């Protein structure tokens, strides 16, 4: 089975689902939903099988396959997963069926925003499945050009989902998202294409002798420092917009406010991770020198994102915007971990990507359930929900607590690793970032108090608790958050070897504590 094209199957399965759903006759909405759920579930099972077949002691890239695609440019349709990509793919395929289940009725009423959707119900689910294929592809691509293609192709389903099923300002949000992303993508395209002449130089001139976009070959290529800096910037800008990092973050809150909650889970939980994933994979490994040249500025932006994003989250009056700003803050942590350049920090950052995916998913799903009930995402439309819907409130609290990185829930471990790892290299940045943990307590608990606490207000008097379908959609996410809170090591075992490679490429000296145990054995003082 070793030659079995696992990734092609994984890639094609949701796409096949998308086509099937799209071809169903109009009006068969229930069938469309069930079909979509079936395909998504099958993909999830396949993804989990892959996770178990992955050998963390084996070669870096596994399940590899490669077919020449555009031979003139040396572009291959090359797929493969390392530990980091595997965790991202599993995150994607696990979330998609839950999102479909949670947004079962969102397509009819635009996620409770009160604006009639522009396209049919089945199209919504077809678009979600198409997006899943793009997400798997972007993480599984081991050819830089192929990565770029998926990176841009992702925009299409997202654009249509928001533009067709969003709130009142959906076209503004969709266009803003598209313009931002296209601008970033364009700059990155320049960098990607630049790799072509570089790699096709003769070996004696520092090239690879033949044009290629293969990541593994390119990462061994030496690039003249000034060129590398420009190329790094091209990639970095695209990823910083995608992540998003302050000051290029303003598209996210607008998009969050308008997008249907289910789609938001995928956009913020998975799609934005392409940004941080790209920084770790491409910015650091293709241009290690340039990345270290840019480190101080990037760390500054990361800390700025953490603090600024958190302060803005405190000030929001719209639930979806609030959660979006918390994500800006959390992405700051991820970038901090990646550019702190330490082993622990980078492993923590990747784990953070997984944990944030689940944590944000839980928050957005529950916020979605709230919005559907009240027809509004404004915080002051709620109050005293705990009395009316204790299960919803309880799960909302758990999701919120994971958002403030409470120990015992998954995000704590990753945040601790990022902070501690970064501290060994950049103390000031780590300490400033740690202030985020106080701010997180403020934005989460204040949000909880205003929506769930207090006496049950008139406006929530008819509010019902979670339905079985809603519970089934959100329970697995909460379960993962709790389990990973206590047992994160199995995931870290998959991540660590990939990060170790990155560390080797970066040529970082290992961490040395100031006081070592050598002297302590006999209790002598230095």
């Amino acid at each position, binding site marked *: 089975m070793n030659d079995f094209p696992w990734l092609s199957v994984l890639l094609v399965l949701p796409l096949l689902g998308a086509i099937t759903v799209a071809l169903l006759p109009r009006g068969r909405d229930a069938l469309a939903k069930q079909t979509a759920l079936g395909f998504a579930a099958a993909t999830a099972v396949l993804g989990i099988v892959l996770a178990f077949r992955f050998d963390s002691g084996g070669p870096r890239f596994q399940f590899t396959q490669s077919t020449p695609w555009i031979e003139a440019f040396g572009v291959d349709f090359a797929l493969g997963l390392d530990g980091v990509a595997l965790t991202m793919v599993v995150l994607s395929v696990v979330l998609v069926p839950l999102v479909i289940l949670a947004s079962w009725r969102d397509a009819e009423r635009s996620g409770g925003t009160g604006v009639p959707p522009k396209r049919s119900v089945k199209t919504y689910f077809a678009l979600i499945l198409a997006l899943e294929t793009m997400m798997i592809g972007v993480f599984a691509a081991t050819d830089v050009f192929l990565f770029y293609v998926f990176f841009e192709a992702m925009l299409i389903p997202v654009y249509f989902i928001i533009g067709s099923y969003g709130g009142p300002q959906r076209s503004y949000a969709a266009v803003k998202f598209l313009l931002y992303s296209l601008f970033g993508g364009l700059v990155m*395209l320049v960098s990607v294409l630049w790799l072509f002449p570089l790699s096709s130089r003769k070996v004696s001139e520092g090239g690879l002798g033949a044009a290629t976009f293969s990541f593994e070959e390119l990462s061994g290529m030496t690039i003249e420092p000034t060129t590398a800096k420009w190329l790094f910037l091209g990639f970095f800008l695209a990823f910083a917009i995608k992540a998003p990092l302050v000051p290029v973050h303003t598209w996210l809150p607008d998009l969050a406010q308008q997008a249907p909650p289910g789609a938001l889970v995928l956009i913020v939980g998975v799609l934005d991770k392409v940004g941080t994933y790209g920084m770790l994979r491409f910015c650091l490994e293709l241009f290690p020198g340039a990345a270290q040249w840019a480190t101080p500025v990037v760390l500054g932006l990361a800390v700025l994102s953490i603090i600024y994003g958190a302060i803005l989250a405190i000030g929001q009056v719209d639930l979806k915007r609030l959660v979006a700003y918390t994500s800006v803050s959390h992405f700051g942590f991820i970038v901090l971990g990646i550019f702190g350049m330490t082993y*622990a920090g980078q492993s923590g950052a990747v784990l953070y990507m997984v944990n944030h995916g689940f944590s944000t998913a839980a928050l957005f799903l529950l916020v979605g359930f709230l919005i559907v009930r009240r027809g509004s995402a404004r915080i002051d439309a709620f109050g005293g929900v705990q009395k009316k819907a204790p299960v919803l409130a309880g799960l909302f609290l758990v999701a919120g607590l994971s958002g403030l990185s409470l120990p015992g829930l998954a995000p704590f471990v990753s945040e601790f690793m990022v902070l501690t790892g970064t501290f060994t290299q950049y103390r000031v940045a780590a300490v400033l970032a740690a202030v985020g*943990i106080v701010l997180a307590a403020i934005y989460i608990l204040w949000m909880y108090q205003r929506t769930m606490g207090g006496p049950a207000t008139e406006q929530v008097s008819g509010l019902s608790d979670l339905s079985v379908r809603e519970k089934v959609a959100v329970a697995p996410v909460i379960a993962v958050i709790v389990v990973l809170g206590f047992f994160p090591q199995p995931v870290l075992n998959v991540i660590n070897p990939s990060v170790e490679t990155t*560390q080797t490429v970066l040529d970082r000296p290992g961490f040395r*504590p*100031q006081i070592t145990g050598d002297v302590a054995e006999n209790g002598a003082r230095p």
Partner: protein
Amino acid sequence: MKAEGFQALAWLLIALPLAGAAILLLGGRRTDKWGHWLGTATSLAAFGVGVGVFVQMLGYGHEERRRTLHLWEFFQAGSLKVDASLLLDPLSISFVLLITGVGTLIHVYSIGYMSHDVDRRRFFAYLNLFVAAMLLLVLGGNYVVLFVGWEGVGLASYLLIGFWQYKPTAATAAKKAFIVNRVGDLGLVTAIMLMFATFGTVGFEQILGTGHEHVGLASQLSTGTATAIGLLLLVGACGKSAQLPLQSWLLDAMEGPTPVSALIHAATMVTAGVYLIVRSGPIFEMSPDAQLVVTIVGAATLLAGAIIGTGKDDIKKALAGSTMSQIGYMTLAAGLGPAGYVFAIAHLIAHGFFKAGLFLGAGSVMHGMNDDVNMRHYGGLFKKMTITGATFGLGYFAIIGVPGLSGWFTKEGIIAAAYEKGGTSGAILGSCALIGAGITAYYMSRVMFMTFFGEKRWADDAHPHESPKIMTIPLVVLAFGSVFAGGWLTLGGFGHFLGPVVGEGEHHGFNPFNPYGIAAFVLMLAGVGLAWRQYGARPVPREQPAGSFLTVAARKDLYGDALNESLLMRPGQWLTRLAVWFDSRAVDGAVNGLAAGIGGSSGRLRRLQTGFARSYALSMFLGASVILAALLAVNVS
């Protein structure tokens, strides 16, 4: 050494109450009928496990009582490696017995106290969660596991203080407690980062050593680093233990049901900071400066708490001020180094008994008074509630330091140890502790007189009555502890028992007739006398009189909240508003403007926003193709 035999089951200590909490929360209404019994049973079972572990520990030689229990690898990446492990030693087991013992009594009491609350099951789930988190805190084998318990306690207190969430004051108090605690946690987490950067590990064994034969890495600390770590740990301790300047949450935390106050204030949460400082002793001992700051914080808090206690008419708030003050004593002792550690812990345990008894007693009074907390509406209750009054009285004698009772032994030790520190600082610290003892006698007598003696000042609908047995039996047990625990610990060799952890120190024979002891006794009598003159001998007005400047300040918690509000909250609100404005106008505006500039004109952008984006996207792709072509051309030529 590894834990063997029964001690290998020490994980049950945490697992049992945790399982209780999980069953009660996940089981929902189905568990309503028997939920409180399950919650009490898991806590009692944990106490049983604790006793088993303790007995086995006593069977080991004096120096072999330190055992670690490795559970699983928590997380590891590169050189950052953290195990989920537990440490069983005399210090942690002392806490375990206190937490599970007093905790179980509070569970039992709550069966009666909460019997009319529709959410009693949820209350017991939170109580269980609290006990589990606190046990994890004191049993954790490294600073990260400690931190997990540390924040777990913060969560449980948040849930319990805000138990009656529909009350806006309760929800606000709960949030405040968590956020102020998080400020402290920021200090602790920074300390942990600094420790990892310094030692390359977060394990107690490696950093602190394992007693006599093995000195930990902390012994190699430079003074500067030791001071930094020490002060950061102190920030953490201040948050959890409600020491200045992070005290403000404690006085609001009374919003929770009364058993919560007993649990948080007496047996568990607030003692965590003292535990942290004593546990980290080898680090503090490398920095006299850090130790001095600890003692100053302790002394200042013990006075501030006592003063606040004098001004409160709310019985729970008066006791809350008292808690601040008593924890201040412990912090002061913990800052004195090995000379004070044993007294800090002994006072902590004694305080666990009498303060739990006092709070539960206050709850029992409220129970009989329609949940009225204003002592000006009490008076003459002793005859109506003899058991409550008597047990409360014994707790009162213990806390003011009546010779022979718990508080006398342990507080005496702290005052003497402070003076024996020597020098100006020793004299000042000792005097603070001494003055504090006098004020304690005053405000506690005030509580006693206003509540149980004097004429009746009850509300018209009040029919005071004694509480049911399920509530009074825990009171009796706690009163027993209030009387005997201090003497038993002080005379029974507790110092020697803790020796392997905190250092043997010089063992002074207990001598109550030292000059400090006599001074404390005189001050205590003066405090009681003054309170009698004001609240015993003359009628207490039912309405609060205007009061002097100091009284008003005490009523307002010495303006702690006003200070927080003007220094932190208001500027924070302004900053938030400014940031929101800046983000939507400046940042977003700049980017939009830039886009408009690139697009040609703002008019064009507006048109794009109404639906012509796809054509724009197309033009971008075309642009990209041009650049591609240009690049290729350059390459070819």
